């Protein structure tokens, strides 16, 4: 399956991926409305996080693991592995906000929704051909491609 791979050697920490992610997941799909209104009012937040340590930086989000620790930990069935697409899928309607997945994910790729008792996790931009973060990355620090056997 195609996944998003981050390359920390060339990441410049511009956070454009976060901007693109947030906008792609907004109701309005408008960067200004997403930031000025939906962020505060609806708790809209990106699935992508750029982490920094001194000069080093890299943009991370759900890896859609082969054997996701979050799926094993999920008590409500909100998180499942789709063996056909390879994606780790999240159904917000089923989630009870127990935070088991957030605790279990050793990659720290799940966060609490700022307002709702729900989580925020990368869905590889369901419905788009190329995830918004990858499209927005100016220097190939994020790529979306098929690697290895799976």
């Amino acid at each position, binding site marked *: 399956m195609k996944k998003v*791979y*981050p*390359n*920390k050697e060339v990441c410049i920490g511009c956070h454009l991926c976060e901007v693109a992610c947030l906008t792609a997941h907004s109701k309005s799909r408008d960067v200004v409305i997403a930031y000025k209104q939906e962020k505060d009012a609806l708790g809209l937040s990106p699935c992508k996080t750029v*982490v*920094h*340590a001194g000069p*080093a*930086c*890299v943009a*991370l989000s759900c*890896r859609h*693991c*082969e*054997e996701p*620790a979050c*799926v*094993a*930990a999920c*008590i*409500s*069935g909100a998180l*499942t*592995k789709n*063996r056909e697409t390879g994606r780790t899928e999240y159904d917000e309607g*089923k989630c*009870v*906000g*127990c*935070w*088991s997945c*957030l*605790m*279990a*994910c*050793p*990659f*720290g*790729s*799940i*966060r*609490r929704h700022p307002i709702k008792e729900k989580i925020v996790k990368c869905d590889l931009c369901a419905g788009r051909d190329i995830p918004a973060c990858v499209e927005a990355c100016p220097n190939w620090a994020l790529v979306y491609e098929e*690697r*290895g*056997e*799976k």
Partner: protein
Amino acid sequence: MKYLIIGNGVASLGAIEGIRLTDQDGAITVVSDEPVPTYGRPLISYLLAGKIGKDRLALRDEAFYAANKVELKLNAKVAAIDVKARTATTGAGEILPYDRLLIATGGVPFRPPMAGLEGEGVYSFTTFAHAEALAEAAAEVKKAVVVGGGLIGLKAAESLFDRGVAVSIVELAPRVLSAAFDDKAGAIVSERLGKIGLKVFCNVSAKEIRRENGKIKGVLLSDGTFLEADIVVVAIGVVPACALAKDAGVTVDRGILVDEHLAASEAGVYAAGDVAQAPDMLTEGARVVPIWPNAYNQGYYAGKNMAGDAASYRGGLAMNAISFYGLATTSVGLVNPPADDPRFEVCDIVNAEAGTYRKLVFQDDRLVGCVLLGDIDGAGLYTGFIRFKFPLDAEAKQKLIDGAPSILMWPENFFDANWNPVGAKETV
């Protein structure tokens, strides 16, 4: 290949998903003595509290069993296993042959010897049926005593309280949640429960349930206190349901002993979940750690192995995420190390103002345990350090203690292998 799975909890579900990775065709039969397919067992407290409806209990959609070609026999109990003939017999006398058997029978609530325990008004809280019975009772009664201040006891207490019942919790240990927490964390949780209006009694045991004409009047504690009650919930733990295995000659210690392939002592027999005593990620030897993620993972690995993919289970990792009235908590790994063992170092920070608590346990130069209260957002990153066993220098340790774990602290090659692998099949 004929697969037979006894029990239909999350370990059973994991096994179905594990088997079907490799074997699309083998016949899978699942026998469950419960009336409904796999549900989120921990969700029964959400159900009892009225936070979710019955429609949200199911762990997988209705099409799951058909899509995975599973024959599910509900309301059926396996009464005996014959490991020589490779058959199991149900209570109704049906004989089910197997090539590979998974025992995923979970745990049964432990009932201590206690005067007055027998009779009406005493409940357990581990099944959908228990939740329904308690919901019905809650509508009629005013006061409840919950015996046991562990996870299940506290969840039962909270849910009954949400239904308008006055609740007292009785715990033998000096604190609630004694397995997952330490005294400080236990005290913070007790305080929160107390503020909401639940009464917590620690360091005492329930001695006797007093009745009048059969009806419960209350519970007498070991220190002489008498707590009035209309109903009593006994939640002092579950014990592995291994009678079936024992009778069949399968080796049982505290639970059914299994190796890293989840294989039990007899050929073709596997065990997973709350019933199993399986390898652990952090400690030598096999342990019974009755938690949800371990049950799923053990089931999944049992399934893979049963289907012929000789995959090694990496071992369970104790973990729990529990919230109490807005106070989120997580506990991962070894959180209460022996006090006199010099290999361990414990760092804990209480921030009373923010209502947060962070405790880290190091064994030599590794992180082996983490408790978080309030601010739990970094929980997963700490879990990564525990699970991947990265050696930590003084600076790295300090960063973790300061609450600033980062993936950029990972060893270079490990980072690339997991986040940006070139070509090779991923490891996690």
